[in-house]
């Protein structure tokens, strides 16, 4: 199977979100970067499917130069090669909206020329939460698409995909090639090994630079939601706090 996985570099936010003074982005000077947990599962799934059925896997990102880091991370756990659509030199480069992002990704997939059996995406990007890039790419490439997937099985050229609903599971069936957007819980991603990291350094990344495109959804400013400040009641230290804890349970009518 030939599989493509789309991943997006996002800041690894800590205990508090801090905005830049112009409220255009998060202040990331003290932060590391990662990809969404959903996409980590997409990468892991691609590697497992290639281990099982043969073929090869590609990771693609549209992002700033340092997003190479996320591509190397994906290759460290077994992705074979990468495509980097470079949007700027550093993390302050202007953001692309989902329509523009999907357009550039679809162009790159066509330009790559490989016949992919499966295109994997996260259900939503961790930072901007657009809920649409995978579906847009599917439409442009005229492929069937299922979203929010937490279980995936390949049977010949058919795919069975499971997703959770309020009361249980929905099972989708669709023919390959297809686009699947996944959620964390699909699998338990492995950690990259040291040999994996060393190998990743030698794997090829094809880069191209793209000029910013307007997709019609324009970020004006970011805002922090009103803080839910709590005056915490200190119930005590260690086991001695137990009676006061149970008083609270009683007060809340939970006993």
């Amino acid at each position: 199977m030939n599989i493509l996985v789309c991943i997006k570099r996002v800041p690894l936010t800590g205990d508090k979100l801090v905005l830049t003074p112009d409220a255009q982005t998060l202040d990331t000077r003290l932060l590391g970067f990662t990809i969404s947990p959903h996409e980590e599962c997409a990468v892991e799934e691609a590697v497992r499917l290639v281990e099982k059925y043969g073929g090869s896997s590609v990771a693609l990102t549209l992002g700033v130069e340092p997003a190479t880091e996320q591509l190397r991370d994906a290759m460290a756990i077994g992705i074979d090669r990468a495509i980097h659509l470079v949007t700027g030199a550093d993390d302050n480069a202007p953001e692309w909206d989902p329509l523009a992002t999907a357009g550039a990704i679809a162009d790159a997939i066509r330009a790559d020329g490989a016949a992919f059996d499966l295109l994997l995406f996260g259900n939503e990007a961790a930072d901007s939460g657009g809920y649409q890039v995978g579906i847009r790419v599917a439409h442009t490439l005229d492929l069937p698409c299922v979203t929010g997937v937490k279980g995936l099985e390949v049977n010949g050229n058919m795919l069975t995909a499971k997703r959770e609903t309020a009361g249980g599971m929905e099972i989708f069936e669709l023919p390959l090639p297809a686009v699947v957007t996944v959620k964390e819980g699909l699998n338990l991603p492995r950690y990259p090994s040291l040999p994996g990291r060393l190998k990743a350094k030698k794997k090829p990344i094809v880069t191209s630079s793209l000029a910013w495109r307007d997709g019609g959804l324009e970020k004006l400013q970011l805002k922090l939601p009103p803080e839910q400040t709590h005056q915490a009641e200190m119930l005590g230290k260690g086991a001695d706090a137990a009676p006061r804890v149970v008083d609270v349970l009683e007060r809340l009518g939970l006993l």
Partner: protein
Amino acid sequence: MILVFIEHSNRRIDDTSLEALTVGRQLADKMNVPLHGALVGSAADEIVARAGEFGVTVLYAAELAQPDTYAPAAYAVCLVELLDNSKPQAVIAAGTERGNEIMAHVAARANLPLAANCTDVQPGADLIVTRLRWGGSLLEEAKLTGTSKLLTIAPNSVPLATVEPTRVTVQSFAPQLSERDYRARVTARVETAAGKVSLASARVVVGGGRGVGSAEGFRELEELADLLGGAVGGSRVVTGLGWRPHHDQIGQTGTRIAPELYISCGISGAIQHMVGAKAAKHILAINTDADAPIMSKADYVVIGDLHQVVPAIIAEIKARRG
């Protein structure tokens, strides 16, 4: 005209779609245009009446040849047909799994931008929307352009508002669908076994994080949850380490909980975790570190080792119950 896509089950409009209708009604009023609704399936009397309470004047009912098969692309075609025929100023759906998915298909077909999970919409030639980022930990104000504005409304973000009931005209239509629209479709459903208290709806949630130390360490948390008729959950660290299955995870990429009390044990209180507990009425944090971020987000705190505190709470409950 403003068009709202209505999700329904058992002859009832879903609450999330009522929220979308509320936003649609307010936007239609401000723009001085009518509010129309669209659904897939037949427009039951109860649904029509309810739509009227939210100010819908025309309700389009798409009748599909395969009414029991859910296929997102096919549902989207129904809306695209209405979009092409009546050029609404905006199409609004609920920011549910299906709402977001169907609207993304609509947006792709119509080649229009889509703003997902909005909490506020201000009218104008372009709409100014406020939408959720980072699962709700951050808000974005954005300008949404397009000949028809496509957006979804974040669940639980707007209070429902009814109006003087309107007369609703139902217009059934059979959209032009092809086999291709059914390439990805639901072929089976599995119901979860009833009986166990679900994390999302539990009145008490006992959550464990890295501080629990091991999979076995969760036994005390299980016992406490059982005593209180609650459910056990955890942080991403404990699901990532395999101490708990992923469906126990609380947070941005896990379950959203809304209990009366969330007892969080050995969890630091990272933003992505806390966003999943936003709807908790009260939070009790048990942590060895008095400076852990969770301590300033909780209503009640106990400083100490959870492996001493939790068994003491269990003993105290048992003693009081006699």
